[in-house]
């Protein structure tokens, strides 16, 4: 899909990353339109998490360009803390601040980094917490919440910054199966409301239903990029086919069905 670059929220050109002399990301190109939901799939260790972390400056890149709304953000002069206000990131380990209440967790960014008025920020925070059903927990501490609840708060915390784009790094990977659904529901609703999202996940069924586009990464390169239906029913490349086949065992098909809902 060739987009008019100026309409894109995110433009990544020839992103290359090295760990020492090891090249882990080999010239990745990606364009994400406003309101688009891109799901990044790939086997473990293929570099998809690393790639995501490059987008908000948590990892350094040695070559290439990252543009947010047409502005290059990976220059030496970049003040990353300002850029990160526009890029929301949710981690696998949610990492709420244990010494603050839920509300304080959500308000820290808006009040200190964005210097917004307390009343306005609080209003938005409470509205968002209510949308994910956790308004009643606003004065609780993270240790009192379940994993799924914490992850939903983490999403709200990122949303409250009014980001242009949201990045999700395997956010359900460390949750108990029962809690995965509540988090995916939140993400699905976010997508429906038109948030621009880049999601790294292993949840195939979810990927299929929420994505506008699937990007398949292996060995630090984008192997395939297509619409979800196409990708899951008719993968173009061998590697993609092999990847999807992982989800079929000779025995125990029921296990397979849970994750790769075809």
């Amino acid at each position, binding site marked *: 899909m060739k987009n008019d670059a100026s309409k894109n929220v995110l433009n990544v050109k020839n992103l290359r990353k090295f760990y020492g002399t090891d090249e882990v990301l080999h010239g990745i190109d990606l364009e994400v339109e406003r309101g688009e939901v891109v799901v990044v799939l790939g086997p473990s260790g293929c570099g998809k998490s690393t790639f995501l972390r490059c987008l908000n400056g*948590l990892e350094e890149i040695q070559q290439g360009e990252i543009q947010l709304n047409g502005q290059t953000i990976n220059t030496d002069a970049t003040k990353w*803390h300002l850029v990160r206000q526009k*890029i929301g990131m949710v981690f696998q380990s949610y*990492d709420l*601040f244990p*010494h603050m209440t839920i509300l304080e967790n959500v308000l820290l960014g808006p009040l*200190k*980094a964005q210097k917004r008025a307390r009343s306005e920020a609080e209003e938005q925070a409470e509205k968002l917490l209510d949308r994910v059903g956790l308004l009643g927990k606003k004065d609780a501490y993270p240790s009192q919440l379940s994993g799924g609840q914490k992850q939903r708060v983490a999403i709200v915390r990122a949303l409250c*910054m009014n980001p242009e784009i949201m990045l999700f790094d395997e956010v359900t990977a460390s949750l108990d199966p029962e809690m995965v659904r509540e988090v995916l529901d939140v993400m699905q609703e976010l997508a429906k409301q038109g948030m621009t999202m880049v999601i790294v996940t292993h949840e195939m069924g979810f990927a299929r239903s929420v994505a506008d586009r699937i990007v398949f990464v292996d060995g630090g390169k984008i192997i395939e990029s297509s619409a979800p239906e196409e990708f899951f029913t008719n993968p173009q490349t061998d590697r993609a086919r092999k990847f999807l086949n992982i989800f079929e065992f000779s025995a125990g098909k029921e296990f397979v069905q849970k994750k790769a809902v075809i």
Partner: protein
Amino acid sequence: MDYNFMLTSIPLYVKAGKLTLEIAFWGIAASLFLGLACALITYYKVRFFDKLVAVYIEVSRNTPLLIQLFFLYYGFAKIGIKFEAYTCAVFGLAFLGGSYMAEAFRAGLEAVSKSQIESGMSIGLTRYQLTRYVILPQAFAIALPAISANAIFLLKETSVVSAIALADLMFVAKDLIGMYYKTPEALILLIVSYLVLLLPISAGLSFLERRVRHG
């Protein structure tokens, strides 16, 4: 056992106890600031100063307080810099305590996980905001047991300042023994005084530790 003597001596001990507490308070407060500054310098690897801090910590931890005090009080006097005994005491305690506090804070800072820091970064906090709102509160809670232990240690070390003629508890006891030969009485009051000072503070700090831990 001369109980009457003990009763009449109590006001002396109370006065001395206050001085002990005062010196300990300023010494501990100064050592906290010094320790935190050193720990932050080491944590953020501030060039040149981190080497200075490393040297300071080694010197401070490997020399006794008594020697430091004598050096400051008697030694410097003879080359023309006269420190008052009170200043020496606080300075000495701060010098000694600073390195212990630095170690406590350092351990606390390093215990704050990388993912907490990344979380804070990804909501757009500057390094200063990150340190102030995310790292320090957690580091402090983790370091609190060590800090409390150090505070108690410093309070006990104040007994050494009697050597440079400050009228703390130790000094008063020595004085009474010297003047009236009421050794057991003076010593019992001395031990009781320290217990009275240290036990509540120790209990109070344990209480604080428990409250600060939200896991």
